[in-house]
Structures are given as structure tokens and as C-alpha cells.
């Protein structure tokens, strides 16, 4: 496998990781109004890809999903079936602003990986164009 192929594999791993991140963000946004929902966070880990023929390459993989253990939002709604004596119940600790920012960041990173992928394709075809007249 050439460097081009390895670079394509690395860019694809980046896109896959950002897609996983966006999935977690969408789960958080969908559950904003779910009582007792803890927001999920996703970490990234580097993984060495061996056997590429051009030395080990660091791929990125989505790490384990963790739950944000910060305090749940206390919502005042006495008519809610889960409300306690004071009329409050535990909502979710999802902050929409944070989630939107995270989604935007995932989108930008995805675009960067996509650009790299396209760049590799252009470089390889430009190289082969040298052999054509």
C-alpha cells in the first residue's frame, strides 16, 4: 500500500470518528427534555494501523461514551407526574448551546478530513497525469 492509500485510510478514520461524535450530539439534543437524562460525551483515541507497508500510521477512533455527571437541571412543574413535594423534578443536564457548538466543531473537522481526502485524490491523479501526454 502506498502513502496515498494509507493517507486515505487515516482521513476516512477521521471522518468516521466525527460522524460518531455527531451521532452522540444528536442523541443529546433529542433528549433535551427527557427527565433524568445525563448528557453523553465522546472521547477520541489514537490507534496505530500496522501492516500498511509504509510504517505505522495513527488512525483516530471514537473512544468510549461517558456520561456527564454534572447536576441535573431542576425544573419547576407541580403538574408533572415525577414532581416531588416542592413541585420540582429532575430534567436533563443538556445545554443546547454546548451541543450546537460541539456539532459545529464536528462538522468543521469532518470537512477538514474530506478536504484532505480530496487532496490525496487530486495529488495521485496529477502524478499519474505525468505519464500521459
Amino acid at each position, binding site marked *: 500500500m502506498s502513502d496515498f492509500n494509507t493517507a486515505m*485510510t487515516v482521513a476516512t478514520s477521521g471522518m468516521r470518528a466525527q460522524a460518531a461524535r455527531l451521532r452522540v450530539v444528536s442523541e443529546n439534543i433529542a433528549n433535551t427534555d427527557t427527565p433524568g437524562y445525563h448528557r453523553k460525551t465522546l472521547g477520541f483515541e489514537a490507534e496505530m494501523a500496522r501492516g500498511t507497508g509504509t510504517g505505522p500510521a495513527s488512525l483516530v477512533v471514537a473512544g468510549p461514551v461517558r456520561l456527564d455527571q454534572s447536576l441535573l437541571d431542576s425544573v419547576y412543574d407541580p403538574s408533572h407526574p415525577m414532581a416531588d413535594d416542592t413541585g420540582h423534578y429532575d430534567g436533563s443536564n443538556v445545554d443546547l448551546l454546548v451541543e450546537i457548538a460541539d456539532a459545529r466543531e464536528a462538522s468543521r473537522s469532518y470537512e477538514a478530513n474530506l478536504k484532505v481526502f480530496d487532496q490525496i*485524490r487530486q495529488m*495521485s491523479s496529477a502524478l*499519474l497525469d505525468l*505519464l500521459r501526454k
Partner: protein
Amino acid sequence: MELGSIVSRHYADTRPATAAQPQSGDGGMLSGAAADFAATLQRGEDAAMSAMTGSGDPHALVQALAQTELAVETVVTLRNKVVEAYQEILRMPV
């Protein structure tokens, strides 16, 4: 004829000099490259199949197809170059 036998003997003597000599190194490298090419094509087809049946990852599909495209482009360019060289030899005045 005397002359005919001399010519034929001379021809028989010089024939081994122009015979093709198989080289062990190049054959192995070429067959390895061909096997690598076939494996790349196979990966692309497998990814396309699993994407069409709805079980594949679109990233894997794009990656496999781009790598297949790169491999096919390389092979086609090389083949064109070889055919061009062959035709150049054929056009050589004898």
C-alpha cells in the same frame, strides 16, 4: 549449398544470444503487484456490495472505491505506456 549451411550454422550459433532470459526478481515483484491490485479490486467490490445491501459504512465504501480508482488508474496508465512502447518498436525500420 556451402553458403546456405554456413548461414544456418551461424544463425543457430547466434540464436541463444537473442533468446529471452527469464529473470527471477522481476517476475515475483510483478505477480505480487498483480495480487495486490486484485485484492484492492476485491475490497472495492465487497464494500460496494455491502453498501448496496444496506449493511455497509458509507465511509468504507468511499474509501474502498477511491483506492480502487487509484489502483485502476495506475494500472491503465502503465498498460498504455507498455502498449505505446511496443508500437514504437513495431514502427522501427528493419
